[in-house]
């Protein structure tokens, strides 16, 4: 498995917002309606292609329950990207975003790219948080914003890949020091960068997303 860069992601947010479902949809392209409560961290990985470069996303899916909160904080370190997830049908998960954001800012690199995700967009009839509210929160705090559905896979690819694009853009702008591992970025084996051609079995799912599908 060769790659030009490895980006560490962390998925955070209240319990039950769909963090593990987003990861499962992204890595396995399937939806599991009933999921065990996450304890500790569960890991996922997938290769994506950004601007012709193979990038490995190493994703840390964390526990959202309050009782795990202090432990979750220890996993922020060295993350290049964070997916901050709330449930559009549960207002309280949106209200808790500020607290999650404080944790993220406090325990991670200041350059970490944060994608705000309003999940469960398929449940429009039960919507409790307007899209505009999510957009406003993201704008106010300098986050990227998307609404997704882990169930229908709407915007799931885009959420992960757009985050990678933003990290990659920051690398190109020199905002990320790729040699500082605290930034959550690792350079792949040098020889692999020049020889990375053709999708391997592990790269079957790699794709370059040009723009949002707008399905949500």
């Amino acid at each position: 498995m060769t790659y030009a860069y490895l980006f560490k992601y962390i998925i955070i947010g209240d319990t039950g917002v769909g963090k593990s479902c987003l990861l499962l949809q992204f890595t396995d392209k399937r939806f599991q309606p009933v999921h065990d409560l996450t304890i500790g961290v569960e890991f996922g990985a997938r290769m994506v292609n950004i601007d012709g470069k193979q990038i490995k996303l190493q994703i840390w899916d964390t526990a959202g329950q309050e009782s795990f909160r202090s432990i979750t904080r220890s996993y922020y370190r060295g993350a290049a990207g964070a997916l901050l997830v709330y449930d559009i049908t549960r207002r309280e998960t949106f209200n808790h975003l500020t607290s999650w954001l404080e944790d993220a800012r406090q325990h991670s690199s200041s350059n970490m790219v944060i994608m705000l995700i309003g999940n469960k967009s398929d449940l429009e009839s039960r919507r409790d948080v307007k899209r505009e509210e999510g957009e406003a929160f993201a704008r106010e705090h300098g986050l990227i914003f998307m609404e997704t559905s882990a169930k229908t896979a709407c915007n799931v690819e885009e959420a992960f890949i757009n985050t990678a694009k933003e990290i990659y853009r920051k690398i190109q702008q020199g905002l990320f020091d790729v040699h500082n591992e605290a930034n959550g970025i690792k350079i792949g084996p040098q020889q692999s960068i020049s020889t990375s051609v053709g999708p391997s079995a592990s790269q079957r799912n790699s794709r370059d997303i040009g723009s949002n599908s707008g399905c949500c």
Partner: protein
Amino acid sequence: MRPPLYPEVQEPPPVTSSQLGLPLLCDVIKPTPLCDVTVPVAPHPRFVPRLLPPLQSRCGDIAMKRERGPKPAFGGAGEAELGGMAASPTGLPRGLQRHLLSGEFDQLRDFPIFESNFVQVTRLGEVANKVTMGVAASSPALELPDLLLLAGPAKENGHLQLFGLFPLQFVQLFVHDESRWQLKVKLSNHRTFYLQLQAPPKTREREFGQWVRLLYRLHFQSAPAVPFTQEY
């Protein structure tokens, strides 16, 4: 592809009462004499695990108070031996440790790990998955490990892949069937699975004994005590 962490695997064949009467802790954990220790049993099967106190309480003075007989050899968890056990019989890093040393998991790279290869056992006793399970200490200051790591071969290339990291305070480990070298792993989210040690016959007993000893120490040197064996 993200392999299943611990797919729906139900109870292996039940252990008979006669098996339960087989070697006690005092037979397998030496040199500490434990014949007079009362081992609490876990309710079964609908046990709702109670979350244990923070990591810091899992080591230190309480452990010392519970010590009986000669103190087993162990230094800090950050030393070459973890809780008195070498990371491997040869002392060389094994698969999971090597995987973490490869550098992709920067945060976990320097953890001392005690690990073994297992197979997950199905209800019929068949092999479901290969699993590498390890315990690690997140700080050299800890006397006991505080993390459980689970890994297995990736579907696409068979290379070892880390699936999960669980604070041991949310995990209960049991000796399930000593005659089959089986451990039971119970997470606080009610997920339970059974792992059978895979090791060469020559070293299997010794390696399983190391796990038994580790479980003993996690149980008796932590507070509050968690069940070590169970009733059926």
